[in-house]
């Protein structure tokens, strides 16, 4: 399976995002890393079977020249989901911060354990 330039960039971004999830203990950075991963996946979808000579699927045109419209339609939904998920995560983080006063996963976990 060969990968196009866009797909390679997307996979690199995906790995960058995952590195953020693995190595950063800050909750805000976790949410930002999730944002990076979402962008990477959107780029990957759009880069599937894409060539630079393709035109947007609008109006009457030669079907063989048109970029695949399905991933584009799907990615609009994925963007909406990404935004709402980020919003929910941030909202939850605000109330978490009010309770525990920390942005660090380790400290929050320790405080949660001391409570029970």
């Amino acid at each position, binding site marked *: 399976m060969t990968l196009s330039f866009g797909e390679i960039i997307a996979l690199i971004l995906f790995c960058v995002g995952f590195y953020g999830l693995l190595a950063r203990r800050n909750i805000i950075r976790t949410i930002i890393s999730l944002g990076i991963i979402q962008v990477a996946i959107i780029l990957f979808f759009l880069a599937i079977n894409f060539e630079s000579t393709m035109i947007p699927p609008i109006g009457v045109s030669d079907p063989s020249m048109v970029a695949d419209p399905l991933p584009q339609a799907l990615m609009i939904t994925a963007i909406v989901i990404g935004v709402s998920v980020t919003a929910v995560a941030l909202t939850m983080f605000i*109330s*978490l911060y009010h309770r525990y006063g920390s942005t660090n996963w380790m400290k929050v*976990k320790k405080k949660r354990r001391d409570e029970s």
Partner: protein
Amino acid sequence: MMPLFLIVLFPIIMALFIYLSFNRLPKISMFMMQLIVLAMAVYFFIYTKENGTVIHVLGYYDQGIGIALKSDNIASVLVLLNAFLFTCMILFNYHKPYMNRLFLFLFVILQGLMNGIFLANDMFTIYVLIELSTIVVSVLIMFKKDSQSIYDGMLYLLTNIVSMTLFLLGIAYMYKIFGSLDLDIIGQRMSLIENPRALILPYSLIITSIGLKSALMPLFSWLPRAHGTPSAPSIVSAILSGLYVKGGLYLFIRFQAIFSEQLDTTHIFLILGFMTAVIGFLFALSQTDIKLILAYSTVSQIGLIIFGLSLNHDYSYWGSIYHIVNHAIFKSVLFLTAGMIIETYETRDIRQITGVFKRMPFVSIITFMAILGITGAPLFNGSISKYLIQSDTSSRDLLEYGLILINLGTIMIFVKYGSMFRGDSHVKTAPVRLNQKLAILILGGFCLAGGIFGVQFIKLLFNINISVSLDGYVRKAIVYMISLIIGWFFYTYLYSKIGLFKKIREIELTFNQICFSIVLFFAGMFSYLLYII
């Protein structure tokens, strides 16, 4: 024929309608609506049973272009089970003060989304529905807004979103390879793939996220957090543990069915299922919080189901699917009664609860029925499904011993769980409310009926004829009695001397460690597949 999407959309739209129209009686209208959903589920079940698999494409496009909903004999049973359990849950919680419009709104929406997950035949639709239900579930977990449940809800949300990003990348790869997202079309085109190595990467990505959803071995640490969180309403715990986690298992069944033609992974899942079951019961034994005991026992049962599904035999396959149904019923009974016990005693610590039988006799009897079901006692529903799972292993000794060990673990958990029923109590408690009594009586009754009429139930639900031989069943009953005695001896004499359990209780992964376990699972699955193919 009513269109299939109604069963997905009707609860959601009605929930929204009841939430927005400033109705004075949200509970009664929601309950009526729930009865309609139950009737619809029964209708779809009967229709599917008579006419075979129903496929309905939204917008009347060809399949593969529009979003397809598919109701086959497993999906229709799960939808029916879903409607039935939600009806019981709303009945059970009818009098609770926190059952306000917002709670009912979220709770009923979850039902619609789960119906969607069971019926959707399109990978992107599955992704959207799971992502939405993750948000709804995390809000439900932290509904009472106490600080522990906020942490648990947050952890649940982020872990599941991370796993779903892997799923989305996986379906991007699938689209790149197959040019379609429809599961049926992918299934048809699967035989055209010349080089199965091309499928390894998408398969590992998808199966990692499904593994997390269904709480497989290294990925289960979110489950007890979410299902056993101290302040979550007991009906939410019951639905999550009884049914929601089965969404993951159902996806496991569907995706395994598609990929099995090219990638044979039954061996690795046999091992993973076994390890999940064993580690699940070790964790459950070490807990002292009764909700956490039940949550970890779910992990153990899921391991058993995955094990049964990977045995590659008809009887064990249908036995596992019947066990999914059974587990949903007895685990919801256990969570509901645990919630009532916690309310009465105002503690979750099993060491401080004694004399439940004296204080709450009715609740105790129903709990015993569920315990007999989950441990596979003869005449109860668990015994039939466990018998079927085991029926193929008689020729393969090691597997049979494995299953006996798993069941022994389950028995030990519930010997421990049952210890709180002993003892004396002089406090008089108020009698159980009628609606709660009715709800747990119906569910508990199904534990017994599912055992006595097990063969007929399987015929009715899945159109499969099975036969349960008397000697095999008696032999299993003897094994059960022996394991019960061993379990009892172990708990009374050995349990307190083993220090290991205390150490296990302290184990708790942080978010970064959970992410690490996801990467580990993915890397392990990826390299294993590269090695064998």
